[in-house]
């Protein structure tokens, strides 16, 4: 598999993560396109020892952080609510979290917790890989994950089902 094929194989995963970060499908594809262009430009710098996918995610995360920074500088913050088309969501089945509620709770997480949680949960990467992609120590991955989960639990009204205690 050559380099461009390897990149192509990563595109679906990149788009999924980008959609979760941006909450907007067009904006997500813009981000992925920037990421791919940059990766193709920089392929000379890539050391083929590491996986291509992790490297692509690292570029994507950095581009996303930069765009958040410049948005703040320009003061043009567009709330996620205005960007997001609320998914048509069936009423939660018993024992499940309401997706709309989860979606709003996610909006209220700090950006660093959100990027960490989404990477681990959606992409299924190990904590070591997440640390490499995000450029932070593994201890920071764990503490962000922990804070994100505690915050989501509080924001979604705990959501603990009483039947739980009967589980043997």
């Amino acid at each position, binding site marked *: 598999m050559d380099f461009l094929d390897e990149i192509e194989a990563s595109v679906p995963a990149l788009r999924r993560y980008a959609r979760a970060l941006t909450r907007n499908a067009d904006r997500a594809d813009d981000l992925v396109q920037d990421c791919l262009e940059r990766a193709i430009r920089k392929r000379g710098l890539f050391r083929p020892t590491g996986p291509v996918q992790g490297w692509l995610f690292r570029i994507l995360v950095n581009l996303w952080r930069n765009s958040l920074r410049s948005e703040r500088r320009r003061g043009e913050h567009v709330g996620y609510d205005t960007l997001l088309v609320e998914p048509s969501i069936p009423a939660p089945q018993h024992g499940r979290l309401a*997706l709309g509620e989860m979606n709003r709770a996610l909006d209220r997480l700090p950006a660093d917790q959100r990027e960490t949680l*989404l990477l681990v949960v959606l992409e299924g990467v190990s*904590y070591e890989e997440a640390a490499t992609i995000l450029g932070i120590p593994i201890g920071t991955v764990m503490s962000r994950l922990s804070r994100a989960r505690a915050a989501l639990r509080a924001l979604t009204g705990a959501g603990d089902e009483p039947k739980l205690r009967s589980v043997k």
Partner: protein
Amino acid sequence: MTPRPAPVSENDLHAYVDGLLPEGRAAEIEGWLALHPDRAAEVVNWQRQNEALAALFPPVAPELIPERLKPRRLALRPRGVTVNWPQLATAAVVLLAIGTGSGWALREFDRPPESDSLIALAVTAHALYVKENRHAVEVAASDRDHLVSWLSNRVERPITPPDLATEGFNLVGGRLLPGDYDDSDSGPTAQLMYENAANDRVTVYITAALPNEGNAYQFSTRESLDAFYWSNDRITCTVVGSLPDAEMKAVAKKIYTQLTWRPDGSASAKS
């Protein structure tokens, strides 16, 4: 007796929820959770969160990739053309360009995309540090031996500050700077600063060569600063300043000659 399981940490609970534990350990965690209902309730809530996130952001089907995200298509888009002329011929062209009245006519010539971000970094670093008086450099020219060995070690290339005395510029000193922000593989960079009697300052930004980038030359003007960039198989170098054209050319030419160009056509930094 079965061996006592290892104690269960907060990290174990996260790894359990994320499916990152080996089977045996996961079973131990389940046993532990059965005895700790409060933590078990929390863990179930985390699992529900994971399910909700996966439902909110489902996997993207590979067959639905739009044209604009196809790497092969993106790779075909025209960018700079890399001209791989023999070193001597290229060096001659550049020296000629710098030396003649046509001057900056090489602007936009042979433009490897990677150089754009290096030039931007060099210009940013220049703008930041030339304003400083007490903190313009980390190591002053008075400590030249240390400056040379330190920067050479960190950039992993021999870096001997060019002598610009005939152009009226003296070395102020130098500093170490981080490389490209979004590429953790790019090494540190060295910035040398020069000053003339009129307090005009010029900086020289040096990095180890970019892999797979051959010889390249680029002139650009950004934020009213002129930048003259070149690269070979050992280093990249960007000279930044806001001098009058003729003076800038003379300084850049002097630096180029001392730092990179060897009369025999070899491309080594002066060591």
